[in-house]
């Protein structure tokens, strides 16, 4: 078990290094010069040169890279070019919001999709299955921002039940959570359904039935635990996407989150903040997947010793 974790950690470091390097390279491929953005359209070449020196942009790329990796290792992501505070401070302001949002969306998705998927799987090809499948397909077929805006117009504008912008109260989380969770619910429901259908055809389910167990006991825990295994992996992968992909929801609901910070920082070419955001998102992704791997090991004893 310990070796398993160690191996996972090692690979995680590799993934992080990859993300860190990619963001460094990609950010520097962009033509717009952060010094120019800071200095404005009237800046003279000397001014720009001075600014670049100050920002360390005049150094050879490889030196910048080494410096950057070194700093990142010590947890120093540099100062924001535009906000003049450590980039990490900016992230610390908004990361908890997005993390909470993603977590709530995840919980909601799991909480809703399991019963739905179960219902559909146990009544394959009957009405309830068709209804659930159609509903989830439809949900998946609408753009997320459109769903968000419509939810907002209905629940905030028309009914006036829920706040539509910012994060002032717990109620402020409801609409963004639903918006973020909906497509996820759709995927997960279908995943749970197909996973369960597959499992229900396995030999051990027949064995369980042959023991005279009630259909309920056959499903809980025999079928469900096996069906969970692929679903858990998906949740892990999607959670990473939720973190990085909350931008749309955050924009619709003017939610102070890391997605908007990232987009904004890219807009103003705030390298330090962009890099820090990406590292944070990558770390979250890696941690969640590490956790998922462990959970996987817990759920499926076959992977525990063999890997």
């Amino acid at each position, binding site marked *: 078990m310990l070796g398993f974790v160690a191996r996972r950690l090692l690979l995680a470091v590799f993934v992080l290094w990859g993300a860190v390097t990619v963001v460094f390279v990609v950010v520097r491929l962009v033509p717009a010069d952060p010094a120019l953005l800071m200095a404005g359209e009237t800046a003279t070449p000397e001014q720009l040169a001075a600014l670049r020196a100050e920002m360390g942009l005049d150094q050879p790329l490889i030196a910048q890279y080494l410096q950057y990796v070194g700093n990142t290792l010590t947890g120093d992501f540099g100062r924001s070019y535009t906000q003049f505070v450590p980039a990490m401070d900016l992230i610390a302001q908004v990361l908890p919001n997005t993390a909470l949002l993603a977590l709530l969306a995840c919980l909601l998705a799991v909480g809703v999709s399991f019963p739905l998927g179960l219902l559909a799987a146990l009544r394959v090809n009957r009405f309830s299955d068709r209804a659930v499948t159609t509903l989830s397909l439809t949900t998946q077929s609408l753009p997320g921002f459109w769903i968000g805006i419509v939810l907002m117009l209905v629940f905030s504008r028309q009914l006036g039940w829920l706040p539509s912008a910012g994060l002032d109260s717990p109620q402020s989380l409801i609409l963004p959570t639903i918006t973020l969770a909906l497509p996820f619910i759709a995927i997960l429901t279908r995943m749970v359904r197909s996973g369960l259908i597959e499992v229900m055809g396995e030999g051990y389910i027949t064995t369980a039935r042959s*023991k005279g167990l009630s259909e309920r006991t056959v499903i809980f825990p025999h079928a469900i635990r096996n069906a969970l295994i692929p679903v858990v992996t998906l949740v892990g992968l999607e959670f990473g996407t939720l973190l990085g992909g909350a931008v749309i929801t955050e924009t619709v609901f003017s939610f102070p989150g890391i997605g908007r910070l990232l987009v904004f920082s890219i807009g103003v070419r705030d390298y330090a903040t962009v890099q820090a955001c990406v590292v944070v998102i990558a770390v979250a992704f890696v941690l969640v997947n590490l956790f998922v791997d462990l959970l996987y090991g817990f759920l499926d004893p076959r992977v525990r010793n063999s890997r």
Partner: protein
Amino acid sequence: MTEPATARVDSLEGDPPLLRVEGLEVEFSTSAGVLRALDGVSFEVRAGETLAILGESGSGKSVTAQAVMALLPQPAGSIVGGRIWYGGRDIAAEPVKQVRKLCATEIAMIFQDPLSSLNPVFRVGDQVAEPFRRRRGMDKRQALGKALELLKRVGIPNAETRIRDYPHQFSGGQRQRIMIAMAIALKPRLLIADEPTTALDVTVQAQIMDLLADLQAETGMGLILISHDLGVVADVAQRAAIMYAGRVVETGSIREIYDHPAHPYPKGLLESIPSEGARGQRLTPISGSPPNLLAVPSGCPFHPRCEFAIDVCRTDVPMLRRPEGWEAGHEAACHRSEEVL
């Protein structure tokens, strides 16, 4: 075409049979059409007796077992005719839920494939203990105690520690024993063993067959042994039913069938076995290939491969019958049993 089996008066023993299958018909719907997997299967088993079901691959042996246990794959397969008498009830007519209550306590089953039949994510101890907990309402500790006893009984070494292991940590033979432990947990009155030793080598196979025989001697349970290994069957079973293309083509005592097969299929089967002492001799297989269940030949399904076939075989479906002068209970579904003998 179908033969509603006439209730035959049993002349062998006075006891009513434990299980009696009459004219069982099972169909599967597949993308290629409806497939009749069982077409009028009839047989019976008594307490303490071992009935062997033999037959080639795909002849419907496993499906018969599944039908009895109400375990046919849903929604593809269903019973479309016939009766399954157990304890005075026709369980073919009862809802699946009702039949399941008989499972494990009355009828239990050992499956063909021991790896896929054990749940990979639960400890074997828990799986073996499950019948005690769920059906007998024992608490966990008590049930595990019972499970341990059983595992020792079926010969799992170090059962005390291994009870906490998972299925994938056991060898094929051990898994098969765990399956047996689970099946016999509640001392069923009838055990159906579907090819319990196919995947195992001869030494392990012998151990398992001994185990089953011991159990039977102890509790007097009836045993249906499904196999295609004629040798294994001969060791343990008293009677046999031989299946071909979803029908029982011959039944009777093992010895009668082996020594005087009255149907060309069992006859051909027996002749195909490489016989000891005849090293290097050419084998004599049955010519032709197995029937396609989606297009079963008319009349006697075996006729295209049968050297005895005459015109009537191509048109009329033969019924199980006991020709004059045969031992009681030995019946064959062949128009020309007399010639075959």
